[in-house]
């Protein structure tokens, strides 16, 4: 039988035994050295990607967020107990560094939409010569370079707004799309009120942008343990 792994935790004195995970399975805390892994028994080889299962996974990770900063595993991580022990044993210094990084923090998310012009993106039907084709491409290229510059400016601007209030940032810039920026900020819990105030003020200065703020979340974007886990064991 395999184990479904939800997250790694430290300093977890007690865990509510009534917590339910994927498919209603009981969740338990598996103590390995001075760390613990929240797991539940799992009988199949793959986990169905459904809204219910994703929410069950998130609920288990979130259930400990009021007491500690967990390192979440990627949704669908199935392992054996031996693999978990080997992994933790082999990667302990790296995991401790990761815990130190997220300790006392939560993840806050900012997404930004901007209006983009698509004037130069509609292909013209009247292009028959190679020269006019390349000229059209030149104009399109100029447009995309401008969009990229705008996207970088928005990303830099957002970083400046929260500078000093965040411990880390993961930003995904998509210069050619309306959803131009998705940023995750690692914020110390006691700085959240200031962080929110700063963003509320910043939003007023950029009425041309549309914002979505959310959180607090477990530090999903700063855990990065699934990648290491895959490298180590080829777990899929």
């Amino acid at each position, binding site marked *: 039988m395999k184990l479904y792994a939800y997250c790694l935790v430290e300093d977890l004195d007690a865990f509510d035994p009534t917590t339910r995970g994927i498919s209603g399975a009981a969740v338990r805390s598996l103590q390995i050295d001075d760390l613990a892994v929240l797991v539940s028994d799992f009988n199949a080889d793959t986990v169905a990607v459904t809204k219910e299962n994703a929410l069950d996974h998130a609920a288990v990770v979130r259930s400990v967020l009021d007491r500690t900063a967990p390192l979440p595993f990627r949704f669908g991580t199935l392992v054996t107990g031996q693999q978990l022990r080997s992994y933790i044993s082999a990667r302990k210094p790296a995991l401790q560094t990761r815990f130190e990084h997220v300790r006392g923090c939560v993840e806050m998310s900012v997404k930004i939409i901007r209006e983009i012009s698509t004037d130069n993106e509609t292909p013209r039907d009247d292009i028959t010569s190679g020269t006019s084709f390349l000229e059209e491409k030149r104009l399109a290229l100029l447009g995309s370079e401008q969009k990229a510059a705008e996207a970088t400016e928005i990303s830099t601007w957002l970083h400046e707004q929260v500078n000093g209030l965040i411990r880390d940032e993961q930003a995904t810039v998509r210069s050619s799309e309306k959803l131009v920026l998705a940023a995750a900020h690692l914020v110390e819990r006691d700085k959240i009120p200031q962080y929110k105030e700063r963003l509320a003020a910043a939003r007023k200065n950029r009425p041309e942008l549309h914002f979505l703020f959310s959180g*607090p979340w477990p530090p999903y974007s700063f855990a990065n343990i699934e990648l290491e886990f895959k490298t180590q064991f080829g777990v899929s």
Partner: protein
Amino acid sequence: MELSPENPLMAEPQIETAHAEEFVEQLRCVTDTLPSRINIDAQSVEQGLAKLVLTLIEFIRRLLEKQAVRRMEGGDLSPEQIEELGLALMKLEAKLQELKTQFGLTDDDLNLDLGPIGRLI
């Protein structure tokens, strides 16, 4: 700050936006590009391979276009060379469009999510 279940900061996550519908639409577009599991049946394997190959060709085609534009802007090419290069790239674009139609793919299908690096195209 004391961490406890009573800490109001640890309440359920809040989502705040004045443009909910717009974000739902955009986030749906993003999740549509996430890699899904591949069913190993003849038709989906063929289409999956076509998608991968055409994505790489599209990526190279765009690189060639950019290079051609740069050379045109730099004054490296004579008007005849510009015309010839432009025609070749125009034909390449038309051919790729034809292949996309043949495999039932759209422009949005031709991309690869490279994780933290972003998307290929």
